[in-house]
Structure formats: C-alpha cells, structure tokens
C-alpha cells in the first residue's frame, strides 16, 4: 500500500477531482500507439484490461448474447494534467489485428481519435478507420515516420484509405512529443470545428 494515512493524523480533505477528458490512439499492432502515448504522457504508460465486444464471425456461443462475445484485452494509457482542473487521458486501443472489434468501452465520450498508420501496412488501420467513421467520431490519420522507411506521399495514403476530405491525413513521429501533441491538436481542431458547426 503506498498511500499512508500517516501516524496519528487523519489524511487531509481529499483534493477535488479534475475534469477527465480522453482521446483515443488507435491503429494496427506495433504501429507506435504506446510510443505516442508515452511521448506526451506525464507518467509512463500504464497497462490495464479493457472489455471489448467481439462480433463473432460464424462462431456460435449459446451461452452468450447471440453473435457477440466480450473479451478483455490489455490496453495502454497515459495522462496529461493540462491544468489543475483538467486531465487528459490518452487510451491506446488494443493492438489487435483481428477484425470486428468494437471499442465502445474505450471510445465512449472521447473527444477524438488519432489513427496511427505504418505506410508499409496500411491495411492494418482499416478497422480503426471504419470504426471511427461509423461512430462519426472526429479523427485524423497519422502516418508514423519510421526511421527506415521512405516517406510515403500523403496523397497516396489518403487515396488508399478513401477517407473523407475533412479527415486530416498527416505525417508524424510517435517518439517526438511535439509531433504527437500537434497531431492531437489537429484532431481537436476538427472536433471543435464540428462542434461549432453543430451549435
């Protein structure tokens, strides 16, 4: 137990809770999601287990709700204290290469998402792109600049992914905190533009 009430003294009044907000970092397995979280998080990324709903493909499990099963997967997350009353959480969606996941438990209420892409394995990000399009959640596609790759023209990536013109397709470096921060801001600016248009 690392919290001690301290001998003889009652702990002080607990501090007020900050307002939590969250963003999602999604993408295929090993694409740099956790690296991106680590680049801007105040604390090293933690790993917890998230419940995900998997739409069963041709598998019948009569003991569960038809066509859906819930499994738990490891998920990394970090946080940034933006000011004493506002805390941004960054959740990396589980890096699964299986299709058909629903990440509702992770994404519910998120401000937006960054879909991290390795341009050599573009197809790995399709489930994430599909998911956020369906949820109409603001997102940007961020091509991770791996040291050993020839940069991919962003226009080609956009064309291959066939995302709407509104969706930013950018290049970033998951190891660089400035680059990750700027990418998150691009997502938030899209979210803000949408929120203002809807107001």
């Amino acid at each position, binding site marked *: *137990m690392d*919290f001690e*009430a301290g001998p003889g003294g*009652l*702990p002080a*009044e*607990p*501090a*007020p*809770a*900050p*307002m*939590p*907000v*969250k963003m999602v970092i999604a993408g295929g397995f090993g694409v740099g999601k956790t690296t991106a979280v680590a*680049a*801007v998080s105040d604390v090293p990324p*933690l*790993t*917890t*287990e*998230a*419940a995900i*709903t998997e739409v069963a493909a041709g598998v019948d499990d009569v003991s569960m709700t038809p066509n859906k099963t*819930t*499994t*738990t997967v*490891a998920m990394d*997350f970090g*946080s*940034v204290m*933006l*000011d004493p009353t*506002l*805390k*941004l*959480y960054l*959740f990396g969606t589980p890096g699964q290469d299986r299709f058909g996941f629903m990440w509702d*438990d992770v994404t*519910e*209420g*998120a*401000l*937006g998402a960054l879909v991290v892409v390795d341009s050599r394995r573009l197809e790995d990000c399709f489930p994430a792109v599909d998911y956020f399009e369906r949820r109409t*959640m603001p997102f940007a596609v961020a091509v991770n600049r791996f040291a050993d790759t020839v940069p991919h023209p962003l226009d080609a990536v956009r064309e291959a992914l066939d995302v709407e013109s509104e969706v930013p397709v950018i290049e970033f470096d998951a190891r*660089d*905190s*400035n680059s990750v*921060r700027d990418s*998150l*801001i691009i997502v*938030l*600016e899209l*979210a*803000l533009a*949408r*929120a*203002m248009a*809807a*107001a």
Partner: protein
Amino acid sequence: MSRDTGEKRPAGRGTQPGVVRPFLLTEGRVVAPGAELPMETQVVATTEGLRQLGALAFERRAIVEACGVPQSLAELAVRLGLHLNVVRVLAGDLRAGRFLTVHEPRAAINTDVDVLRRVINGLRAIPTAAGRA
C-alpha cells in the same frame, strides 16, 4: 449465487496476480454491459470514508485508501492490480456506502466547445521534450 464469471477469461494470458478469480471479489456481480462507468471516471475518497477505513477490509479498503488522491478507475485498477470491471463494481458499492465520490465525465463533453478549446490551449502550453514550443 457466485457465478464463476472469471472462467470466461482467456487462459494463460500471463497477466498479473490472479490468485483469486477476479469476480470472486464482487460475489460474481458484473456491471451490466452499457452501464459501465467510463474508465476515466474520477473517484475520490470522502473524508468520512477515510475516517471509516477500519470498517473495510482488503480490496475495498485499498481502493478507499488509494482514492485519498483523485484518480480514474483505470489508474486505480492498475495501481491495485485489479481487473477494471472489478474496480467498477467495487467503486459502485463504495459510492453507495458513501466511502467514495464518483465523478463521471459530463455528458456530451466531446462536443462542448469550451472544453475543446481548453484542451487545445492546455496541450499547446505543455512543456515538451524540446522545451516550450
């Protein structure tokens, strides 16, 4: 009564403790799908809760103790080595018993223009590896 929901977890995942099947701690109760508190929900011990710690044991006590500092359900789960959904159930119990206050994120916070602006400005101001941008 105590349905063994722990059985449904994939075997041999090699995650942490697991000496006790996770949902034994909740007497087999799980949170109804869709009714889960978001994982960034903040939980804070009440002054009364910290004073009444002696009335609690094991995980419940550990949760209230840890919540002397506000934190999210996700952080709490990691810190105590508990399954997130177990923490969700226990935090609900402890809220009902007034040991904890639970601060759910505001509804429709993701389309709140003021909140979005605050987050953008907050991110712009964070010191990064290259110093202040």
